[in-house]
């Protein structure tokens, strides 16, 4: 056993020596490689991220020192800085603040150090250490082998303090340590820094698997933790990971033991793409390109496979600010950037490599990140798509699939989340807003249908309406929030209008309301609210159930607004009908699937909508499903 591991290690180390001789690292710690290897590693070392002026850096430092996660102003200020570009040296502090790392640690009764002590037992018994990863892999493989052979005999008398599952876990993590960012200074080769880096990565991943056995270790997590470790201390990285994977705002809806969640999110993204990029989506479809092949790696490794690291970090800044929504936003942006090239290609074999290895000229900061900020993705859109996917899987005969959506719907649900979070001592409300879920499903689907009706041809009309909306003085009363939410279908037009007005003058945008004129778009207001910890829950409950008096008013208003616009649109529809269907082939499909049920509520007043829903068994099923 010893001989094996040592010989395997020496085989490796000789090549490492060759590599580490005179190897240089770029400013983010990635090794410069020769041209050919560079291509293989798919990494670009020419960075184009903007440098923040000293004054701004000072401002940011100040903001961070007075950081208050619940503060609305702090949130909008930090968004402004993220838009300008966070200086690499301050990124760790920004992430720590946004993820509330210290708060999460204080609220949890889990102790990182104690956990590591507990893990030490099995590791010592197995004769492995995280400081000798190669020999650890060999030893663990052998032990696994031996145990596997005698599994049945052993099951009764297990005197060792390790289990087969633990060995599998240790081995899998160890196996991936050198395969996540193999050219990064902190993980590459056998230098003391790399050995320490691999050891830290190992410990954080093992501790997380112990902390959250429902997720355990999944390939992809090693990339995420490695990035966190590049910016945070070991224990901070651990708690940052728990925040990222534990909160439904972030990635709780992406990671689970069976990968069902990520599959669900890929379906949601599929719907989302159909809705936003109908032609491209159809094109991908006809070429036989399945989204799961490239979207899943994006989701599970948070875009760390992109060749330009400054872009990756900017994407991460946004993800840490906005959570899952930013993941969708980035995916959409990349696909949009690749759209012209993809449309020229007709076969999967040519298209997939482009999507799996996004070309450098598309991933550069100046290209990708600027496009990213211009791409708008609204929370409600994603919720709509989520409902649609749930609805579809609901109609599938498989009972297996029926169970899954329940687990996945934390995006809107709360009960499961409570289950997930409970371990970290989260205090989430739940169960109150169970019944009216069907209502919100209805409205969400309706909104989407309306959006389909309205876009892209109803824009002229929309912009008229829109200018009216914009003329309303902006103050943050709940009524306003909901009215604006209702007009969300005009977002694109609003954005356009907003940009136009921005070009003319950017003076009349009060800064406290958000960064760079983002304010005009209503759902952003919602998002900002959602960003503020407790009010997130408050706002969701509010919107979903419409139980509170204000909520009801808002609800009514929102439906009313939609209703009006829908009527306006329906008058316009006949002459545009054909081209609208052409441009948006999916709309008809969605309509046919949703309208039969919603036909009575759609044209009626909100009151009757509520009434019909409470009486309709089908909606009750949906409501149950979503819970």
């Amino acid at each position, binding site marked *: 056993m010893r001989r094996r591991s040592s010989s395997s290690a020496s085989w490796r180390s000789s090549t490492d020596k060759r590599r580490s001789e005179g190897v240089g690292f770029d400013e983010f710690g990635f090794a410069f490689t020769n041209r050919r290897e560079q291509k293989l590693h798919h990494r670009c070392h020419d960075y184009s991220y903007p440098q923040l002026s000293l004054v701004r850096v000072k401002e940011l430092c100040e903001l961070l020192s007075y950081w208050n996660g619940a503060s609305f102003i702090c949130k909008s200020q930090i968004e402004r800085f993220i838009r300008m570009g966070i200086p690499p040296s301050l990124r760790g502090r920004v992430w720590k603040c946004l993820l509330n790392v210290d708060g999460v640690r204080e609220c949890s009764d889990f102790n990182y150090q104690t956990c590591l002590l507990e893990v030490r037992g099995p590791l010592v018994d197995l004769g492995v250490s995280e400081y000798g990863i190669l020999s650890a892999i060999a030893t663990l493989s052998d032990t696994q082998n031996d145990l596997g052979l005698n599994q049945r005999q052993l099951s009764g008398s297990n005197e060792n303090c390790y289990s087969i599952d633990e060995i599998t876990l240790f081995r899998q993590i160890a196996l*991936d340590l050198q395969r996540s960012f193999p050219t990064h200074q902190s993980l590459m080769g056998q230098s003391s820094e790399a050995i320490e880096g691999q050891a830290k990565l190992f410990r954080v991943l093992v501790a997380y698997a112990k902390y959250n056995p429902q997720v355990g270790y999944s390939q*992809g997590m*090693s990339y995420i933790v490695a990035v966190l470790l590049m910016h945070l201390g070991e224990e901070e990285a651990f708690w940052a990971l728990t925040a990222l994977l534990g909160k439904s705002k972030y990635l709780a809806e992406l990671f689970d033991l069976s990968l069902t969640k990520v599959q669900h999110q890929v379906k949601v993204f599929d719907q989302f793409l159909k809705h936003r990029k109908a032609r491209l989506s159809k094109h991908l479809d006809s070429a036989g390109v*399945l989204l799961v092949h490239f979207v899943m790696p994006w989701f*599970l*490794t948070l875009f760390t496979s992109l060749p330009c690291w400054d872009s990756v970090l900017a994407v991460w800044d946004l993800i840490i600010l906005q959570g899952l929504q930013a993941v969708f936003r980035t995916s959409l942006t990349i696909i949009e950037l690749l759209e012209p090239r993809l449309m020229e290609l007709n076969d999967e074999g040519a298209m997939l490599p482009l999507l799996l290895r996004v070309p450098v000229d598309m991933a550069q900061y100046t290209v990708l990140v600027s496009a990213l900020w211009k791409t708008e993705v609204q929370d409600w859109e994603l919720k709509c798509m989520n409902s649609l996917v749930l609805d579809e899987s609901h109609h599938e005969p498989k009972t297996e699939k029926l169970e899954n959506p329940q687990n996945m719907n934390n995006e809107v649900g709360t009960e499961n989340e409570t289950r997930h979070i409970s371990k970290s001592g989260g205090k989430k409300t739940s169960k109150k807003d169970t019944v009216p879920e069907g209502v919100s499903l209805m409205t969400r689907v309706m909104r989407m249908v309306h959006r389909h009706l309205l876009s892209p041809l109803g824009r002229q009309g929309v912009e008229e309406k829109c200018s009216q909306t914009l003329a309303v003085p902006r103050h943050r009363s709940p009524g306003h929030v909901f009215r604006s939410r209702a007009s969300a279908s005009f977002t694109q037009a609003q954005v356009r209008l907003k940009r136009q007005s921005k070009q003319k003058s950017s003076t009349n945008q009060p800064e406290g309301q958000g960064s760079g004129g983002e304010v005009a778009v209503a759902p952003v207001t919602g998002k900002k609210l959602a960003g503020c910890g407790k009010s997130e829950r408050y706002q969701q409950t509010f919107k979903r159930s419409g139980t509170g008096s204000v909520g009801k008013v808002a609800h009514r208003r929102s439906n009313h607004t939609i209703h009006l616009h829908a009527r306006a649109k329906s008058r316009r529809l006949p002459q545009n009908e054909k081209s609208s269907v052409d441009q948006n082939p999916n709309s008809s499909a969605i309509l046919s699937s949703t309208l039969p049920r919603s036909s009575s509520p759609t044209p009626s007043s909100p009151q009757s909508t509520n009434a019909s829903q409470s009486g309709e068994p089908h909606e009750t099923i949906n409501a149950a499903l979503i819970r």
Partner: protein
Amino acid sequence: MGSDDSYNFVFKVVLIGESGVGKSNLLSRFTKNEFLHDSRTTIGVEFSTRTVQLDNFTIKAQIWDTAGLERYRAITSAYYRGAVGALLVYDISKHLTYESAERWLKELYDHADPHMVVMLVGNKKDLENLRTVPTEEAKDFADKKGLMFMETSALDSTNVEAAFNEVLTAIHKKVASREVTRGSISAVTLSSPLGLTREAQEERKGCCKSS
């Protein structure tokens, strides 16, 4: 990628097997003649193509390299779609990776075309002194299951070319004799008589030029 010359057939071949047996390196050795000591963990799928000349035919091999981790199998059915060949890879120095071959095989037949060509590949042949899987044992297993068999080393290139070429030849034979009946890429019109197949090839050529 899209720059390949015209070709007669497209064959989709999948690489499967446990995590860390060297699937990605087999792929890069075959398609780029490269071996990366520090390759990345495959998340989901990697993908590469290479055009090879077999007899008088030009065959474009689409090789799909899949993630080996157990839980990824939940979604692997999507990878198997349309595959006409598979390389089931294990590590000759890790017996456990060989033992799981049977499970992988079942997985494969559950989701893919049952007539597909499968080769059992013992990789890391360069680690002869660490061998735990005897060649004979693996060969017997392969014979029993009706699989082709070969031992390779992606590190020193031993048999990599040969393994892929044998699989592609076998697929071609099956296609020619129309043994495989469905589930293949559009270029391979398996169920149709030869004349029609030609037609499909022509079509393919045309579309290739345009891309």
